[in-house]
């Protein structure tokens, strides 16, 4: 493996200074389940790994019924699904954290790293988008926030600028009569990468007959995970019905621009967007 230096940063400002001084060759190390493999396979040129796991802000896991969730960027998957209140509030995010790799991967990998790795097929990103998550980013000029749907800019590319790092994710408290769901299509039962992934969150009225609002997001059908904004908006105010859900699924299919590769053809992926969007929406509604 390429030779590199290693620093265990103790504060956000130390990590930011190191990133700023070392530019493109510095890389944040959290769980390392993507980064270490990329460096070993010479797919990423890294001169300095900045381990952030000793920094308190990136380890925060704090849920409050009113304030919602603050999820530090280095919190491992297994810690998230161990908290019942978080499982109840954000079941769509839990669906994703439980299917990323196997047990050993979930012991190291986290949602923040899954986001920063910016794979188009990342399982955590559609749930973050449908749950309205915000990225808290620290940089040389202070802190800024960015809606998660604007974070990925291409395969492996993010909106992080020189010297910037993801500190945490903020997810608002769920509305009453709402829930979320994420699923993916893979040809096996587990330990695989999504051919297509779909996440949905739905809020119903008190009578649970009418959709107040919904959000739909897709993975592995474009260079970045997609927020299906039109498909989401056309559900607002509609009665819960197969017809409404079919319309949303078609609108989601319309924005998919998948490639054909070893995992599936563009045609199969476009078909799957329809199937999985329907299942994600119905899954979220059934959980309410």
């Amino acid at each position, binding site marked *: *493996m*390429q*030779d*590199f*230096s*290693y620093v*265990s940063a103790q504060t956000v400002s130390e990590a930011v200074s190191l990133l700023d001084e070392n530019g493109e060759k510095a890389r944040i*190390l959290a*769980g*390392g*389940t993507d980064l*270490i*493999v990329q*460096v*070993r*396979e010479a797919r990423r040129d890294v001169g300095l*790994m900045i*381990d952030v*796991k000793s920094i308190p802000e990136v380890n925060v896991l704090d849920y409050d019924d009113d304030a919602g969730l603050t999820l530090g960027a280095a919190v*491992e998957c*297994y810690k998230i699904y161990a908290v019942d209140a978080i499982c109840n509030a954000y079941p769509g995010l839990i669906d994703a954290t439980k299917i990323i*790799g*196997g*047990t*050993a*991967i979930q*012991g*190291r990998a986290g949602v923040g790293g899954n986001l920063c790795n910016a794979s188009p097929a990342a399982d955590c990103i559609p749930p973050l988008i449908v749950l309205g998550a915000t990225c808290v980013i620290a940089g040389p000029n202070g802190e800024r926030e960015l809606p998660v749907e604007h974070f990925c800019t291409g395969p492996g590319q993010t909106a992080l600028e020189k010297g910037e790092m993801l500190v945490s994710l903020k997810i608002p408290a769920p509305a009453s009569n709402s829930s979320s769901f994420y699923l993916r299509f893979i040809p096996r*039962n*587990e*330990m695989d990468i999504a051919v297509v992934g779909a996440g949905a969150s739905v809020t119903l009225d008190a009578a649970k007959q009418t959709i107040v609002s919904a959000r739909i997001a897709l993975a592995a059908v474009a260079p970045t995970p997609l927020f299906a904004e039109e498909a989401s908006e056309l559900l607002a105010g509609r009665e819960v019905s197969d017809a409404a859900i079919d319309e949303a699924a078609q609108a989601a299919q319309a924005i998919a621009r998948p490639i054909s590769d070893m995992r599936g053809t563009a045609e199969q992926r476009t078909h799957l967007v329809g199937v999985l969007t329907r299942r994600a929406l119905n899954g979220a509604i059934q959980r309410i």
Partner: protein
Amino acid sequence: MARKSHVQTTINGETVEFLCESRQSLLEVLRDELYLTGAKEGCNNGNCGACSVILDGRLVNSCLVLGVETEGRSVETIEGLAEPDKLHPIQDAFLENAALQCGICTPGFIMSAKALLDSNPNPTEHEIRYWLAGNLCRCTGYDKIVKAVMDAAQETSA
């Protein structure tokens, strides 16, 4: 030659010091520096689980951990399982059930099973199969391994 760091960690209950380069994985440190060759290199990318060890109580792939990251932490490997005159119940169960053939994946499976039984002493067959999904075996077809873990669970929780 790259600069080496001094690392102090606990391995199988004993304080251990070693020198390693930043780029050396925990697996490389265990095998090449400390001569603990129980953990195996299979895929070296997190898919096969042959290098599974327990780090601060959590199952990890040692090929995806840097040796320098283990400063001040606690590592359990297959070498720490048996007592001098007695195998660990999971090791016994693997022998009794003939849950190994070539043996390369076995230390990883046993460490993975130990992490499971430490956190869930009475897992269902379904839970065992999902927990072990990150450990690959190309010989047995898995049934004997799953049976061995079920037997070990009965033995240790009885």
